[in-house]
C-alpha cells in the first residue's frame, strides 16, 4: 500500500524533476519550505501567542487579517513538501519521524477546524488590544503553538532520528 503510493508519487515527471532531473529544484524547494515556515510562524504563531495572553498590546481582532499570509506559508510548505515526497518517497514512507510530522500537521488541522466551528473566531473578531479571549481559545492557541513547533522539530529530526536522506 505505502509502496504503491510512493511509486505513484515518484513515477512521473515531477518525481524525476525533484529527484535529480532538475538539479536546482530540490534546494529551491528547501528554501521556499523555510520561507513558508517563517510566514506560518510569524502570522499564526504570533496570533497564538496573543490569544494565550502574551503581546497583549496587539489588537487581536484585526490581527486575524494576517492569517491569509500564514495560510499562504502553509500552502507553500504543502506544495514544496509534496515535491520532496515525489522526488524521493522511499526515504519517507518507512520513516517514523515523517509519520509523526504528518500526524502533528493533521492534529494542527483538526485544531483549526475546532477553532472555526466552535465559534471562537467570531467571538474574537470584535476584540481589541488588552482583551482576554475565552478559555477555550487559549487552549486552542497553546495546542496550535505546541503542534507547529512539534512539526518543525520532527522535520528537523528527519535526517537524524529517522532514516531519511
Amino acid at each position: 500500500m505505502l509502496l504503491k503510493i510512493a511509486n505513484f508519487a515518484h513515477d512521473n515527471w515531477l518525481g524525476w524533476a525533484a529527484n535529480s532531473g532538475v538539479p536546482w529544484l530540490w534546494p529551491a524547494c528547501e528554501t521556499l519550505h523555510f520561507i513558508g515556515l517563517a510566514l506560518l510562524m510569524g502570522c499564526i504563531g504570533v496570533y497564538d501567542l496573543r490569544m494565550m495572553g502574551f503581546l497583549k498590546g496587539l489588537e487581536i481582532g484585526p490581527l486575524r487579517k494576517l492569517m491569509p499570509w500564514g495560510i499562504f506559508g502553509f500552502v507553500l510548505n504543502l506544495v514544496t513538501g509534496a515535491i520532496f515526497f515525489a522526488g524521493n518517497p522511499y526515504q519517507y514512507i518507512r520513516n517514523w519521524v515523517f509519520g509523526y510530522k504528518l500526524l502533528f500537521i493533521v492534529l494542527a488541522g483538526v485544531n483549526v477546524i475546532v477553532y472555526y466551528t466552535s465559534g471562537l473566531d467570531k467571538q474574537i473578531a470584535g476584540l481589541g488590544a488588552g482583551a482576554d479571549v475565552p478559555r477555550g481559545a487559549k487552549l486552542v492557541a497553546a495546542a496550535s503553538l505546541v503542534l507547529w513547533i512539534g512539526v518543525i522539530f520532527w522535520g528537523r529530526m528527519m535526517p537524524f532520528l529517522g532514516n531519511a536522506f
Partner: protein
Amino acid sequence: MTLLTSLEQSAFCAWVRESGSLFAYPGILFLHTLGLAMLVGPNAAIDLRILGVGPELSLGPMRSLLRLMWTGFWINAVTGSILLVSDASTKLANPAFAVKMVLIALAMIDVFLIKRFVFRTAAPEPQRARSLVKVLAIVSLVLWTGAITAGRLMAYFGQDSGAPEFINKIGG
C-alpha cells in the same frame, strides 16, 4: 593554528559534531530553526502590515514583537556560533556563509531603521516618510529571503558535519 580551529578541535565541538546525541548537532539545529521562526516570522508580519495588509491593525503596538525578534536573534547568534565553530574550517571557506552573514547584518540594520521610523514617530508621518518605510519593509523581506536562501545553500557549497553520511542534504 587560529583560535577558531583550536575551538573546532575542542571537546565540546567534537561532542556537537560526533556524539550523535539528540542534544548535540540535531538539537542545536532545531533551536536554530525555531530562532529563525521567532525572528523572521514576526519581522515579516511587521513588513506585511507596513505594506498594507490588515490596515485596521494598528502598527504601533506591533513594536512589542521586537522583543520576540531579539530573543530569536540571540538564540540564533548562540546556536549559529556553536554550529560555526564546530565546522569552522569548512563553513568559513563556504561562500554562501559569508553571503548569509552580510544579509543578516543588513536585515538587522533594517530592523533598527524600521524601529526608528515606524515605532518612534509620535505624530502621523508625512507622505515621504510613509513611502520610505514601505521601501524598508520590502528591503527587509528581500534580505530575509536572501539570508534564508544563502543559509540553505550552505549545504550545497560545503560539507556539514553532524551527519557526515548525509552529505549535502542537511545544513544550517
